[in-house]
């Protein structure tokens, strides 16, 4: 008989995720997404004149999309994929190379690139699942992949432009290169991703996700094929990353090794989700907005910007296990409950 020895037993099973059930009714489930979409749709009215600001807004949306994808993979099934940037990079570089160098029509290149990213991500998931890699080992393996991809890009100079980056010809002259049009395209993708996330949550897949997050062993015993659902999450998240990366490549016109690098993408996504809350629906969106503002404020700080990110990561993961916003939301809920009981007395 083995007894849990230490008295400070961690009672939450999910390290950083949430196990709440999504709302039952269709309206309650999806109106936050519609509202968010509507609000964000107004941004160009406010910033539309400045090409610079709109460019930043587009970048913010792209990161939001990345964050949702990471939420699907890590928030839903605890797979620490430290290769968000790399998977998006697979999509971006593959699409650019296929369209520009292999001469494929942009739509075909996009589709193939997304498929490639999906397969790669799915493979990583599958390997992690087959070899029962825990969170840490999955993290290390995906980190190794991320860094390898970066080195691959740097090494294959002929194909990828190496250090100097790649100018993406395909998409030039199309609506993609217009900042406002691109904004609405990415907003559409963001909303679509949110819809997918919520739909997943409400489906039997989402039920399986919650089960395996709460207790992997219990889920297995209850008949949930944990392996399969993990791979599903990996595939869906990677598809999201791949297509975002690919569309970004054609929309921006230029991609380089730093565009999809670990320090540039993965770290930001982590901070964003630390703010907005892992596993929540709008967490990525909140995190995106907060982060975009923060980034703007820090743009002149140079290296001190990195210091601030570091401090944020520490403060956020130390103080708020599920994210700053959920913690604040919990606090508010607690205060409201207290106020109500006082009134009721």
């Amino acid at each position, binding site marked *: 008989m083995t007894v849990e020895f230490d008295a400070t037993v961690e009672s939450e099973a999910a390290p950083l995720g949430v196990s709440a059930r999504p709302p039952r009714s269709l309206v309650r489930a999806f109106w936050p997404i519609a509202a968010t979409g509507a609000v964000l749709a107004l941004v160009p009215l406010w910033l539309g004149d400045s090409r610079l600001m709109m460019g930043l807004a587009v970048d913010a949306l792209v990161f939001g999309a990345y964050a949702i994808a990471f939420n699907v993979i890590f928030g839903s099934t605890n797979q620490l994929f430290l290769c968000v940037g790399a998977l998006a990079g697979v999509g971006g570089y593959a699409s650019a190379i296929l369209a520009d160098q292999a001469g494929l029509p942009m739509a075909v290149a996009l589709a193939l690139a997304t498929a490639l990213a999906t397969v790669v991500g799915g493979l990583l998931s599958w390997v992690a699942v087959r070899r029962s*890699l825990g969170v840490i080992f999955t993290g290390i393996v995906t980190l190794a992949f991320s860094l390898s991809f970066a080195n691959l890009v740097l090494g294959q100079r002929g194909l990828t432009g190496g250090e100097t980056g790649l100018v993406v010809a395909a998409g030039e002259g199309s609506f993609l290169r217009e900042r406002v049009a691109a904004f609405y395209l990415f907003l559409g993708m963001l909303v679509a991703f949110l819809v997918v996330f919520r739909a997943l949550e409400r489906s039997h897949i989402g039920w399986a996700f919650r089960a395996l997050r709460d207790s992997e062993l219990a889920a297995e015993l209850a008949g949930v094929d944990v392996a399969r659902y993990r791979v599903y999450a990996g595939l869906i998240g990677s598809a999201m990353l791949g297509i975002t990366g690919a569309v970004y490549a054609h929309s921006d016109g230029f991609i380089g090794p730093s565009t999809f690098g670990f320090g540039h993408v993965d770290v930001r996504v982590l901070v964003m989700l630390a703010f907005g809350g892992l596993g929540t629906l709008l967490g990525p969106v909140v995190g995106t907005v907060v982060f975009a503002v923060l980034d703007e404020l820090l743009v002149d700080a140079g290296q001190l910007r990195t210091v601030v990110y570091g401090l944020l990561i520490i403060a956020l993961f130390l103080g708020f296990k599920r994210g700053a916003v959920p913690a604040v939301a919990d606090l508010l809920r607690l205060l409201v409950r207290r106020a109500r009981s006082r009134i009721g007395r």
Partner: protein
Amino acid sequence: MTAVVLDGIVLGLQFGLLGVGMTLVYGLGGVLNLAYGQAAVLAAMVVAVALTAGAPALVAAGAGLLTAAAGGVVLDRTLMLPVYHQRGEHRVLLGLLLTLGVAFVVDGLLLWRYPTGALRLTIGGEAVPILGVRMRAGSLWASGISLAVGAILLLFFRATTLGRAARSVIQDEVGARLVGINPAAVRTFIFALSGALAGLVAVTRSMTSPVGVTAGFDFTILALIVAVVGGLGSVAGAFLAGVLLGIVSTVSAFYIGQYITTIVLLAAAALTIVMRPRGLLGR
């Protein structure tokens, strides 16, 4: 070819020391210290500043090592406390994230203060022929120091009471408490030791090529690879893995190219995890 392999061994010995620091902290505390490379760079910068200020070489080196060790102690006694309250995977995850934050803070501060900082130690002396290859004094010193420190470490862990106590905490923390060992104190000591090791590697590395202020994350990733391949928690494993990977690294860099070499090293770590998670000598 011999020259390449010898260079590989020189490099490998430093890889080994680097890996030992990382593997010890993981083995003892269950923490993957992502700020490890920054300890090395911090030491390098301190040494550089001290040397520029005119301090004698040994004093400067000592100052660097001491700073890195002190940093380790501070980290263990502050941020790591909530991490140690967690268990298992939660602990590793939180430790990973918090040390990542620390890495950014230290990296950013160092880059801000010394944007072009680098440490380069030139060791005077004749090149000595070994197996028909002329080895520069710097390489010889670096190897000699690494070997000596490595031997001392192995002896320490094998034959001294404190070293044995450290091993016992890795093997069974509860058992260690039962015999009167304070795991927290041992962890602090090991954190300090790993910081000093990182600093030492920075100093020996700078004897053969400059250690720049941006090298932090490279060191960390390298340490992680060596620790994983050697077996997390195994000191001897880290050394063995270090030397092997050092040779692989120089051979690959010589015959193929720099980027592929990095990929090969990363793949070695990934393959170890997938095929043989306990590494070369881990349990």
